[in-house]
């Protein structure tokens, strides 16, 4: 699942994994941020993210977990209280 990542000095990236579409975009068009509300019954948007797990830095891609139940939990920040 999650592959081990090396610890460098830069903060590794990650983010939405866009569906592969060969749409040509005119350079003048500014890209609108996707903020559409999630709905039940729709496919969870894929993403990659760096992280930490049990003594290792890892890279995770959501769709590598297809076939399993996934709980994706967001929280405000490390060292917050609840």
């Amino acid at each position: 699942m999650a592959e081990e990542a090396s610890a460098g000095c830069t903060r590794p990236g990650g983010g939405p994994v866009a569906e592969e579409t060969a749409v040509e975009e005119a350079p003048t068009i500014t890209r609108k941020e996707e903020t559409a509300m999630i709905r039940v019954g729709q496919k969870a948007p894929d993403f990659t993210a760096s992280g930490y797990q049990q003594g290792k830095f890892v890279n995770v891609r959501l769709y590598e977990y297809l076939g399993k139940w996934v709980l994706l939990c967001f929280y405000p920040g490390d060292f917050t209280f609840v």
Partner: protein
Amino acid sequence: MSVDSMFVHKMWDDDELSKMVKGGVPFAMLSDAGGKIGKLYGIFDEAAGIETRGRFIIDPDGVIQGFEVLSPPVGRNVNETIRQVQAFQLVRATGGAEATPSGWRPGKKTLKPGINLVGKVWQEWKTEEAFD
């Protein structure tokens, strides 16, 4: 997942969480710098620059079956999350032939939706069951 880097996740796990959970947090603590993924899931608070407490149940097909979003000061109920996962797993295992009424937990009666149940839920399920 939070906007913190994986380095901060490590320190939090090392310094605090491992004192609450033996061996530290077992699952991946993910980093969402800038909230790009949180925006995709509609739970990023732009003004504060943080993720709100969004929790998504994703089934083996990658389909979102449920979500809950709380503002930062109120924590979640893990038992309720587990109960919901167990309910979705039961529904999936029965191919949708069974459904879990309000208050269901493992061992309690399920309902079998169909024409014979129309107007008969009152016989199959009591209101008190929603509360225990």
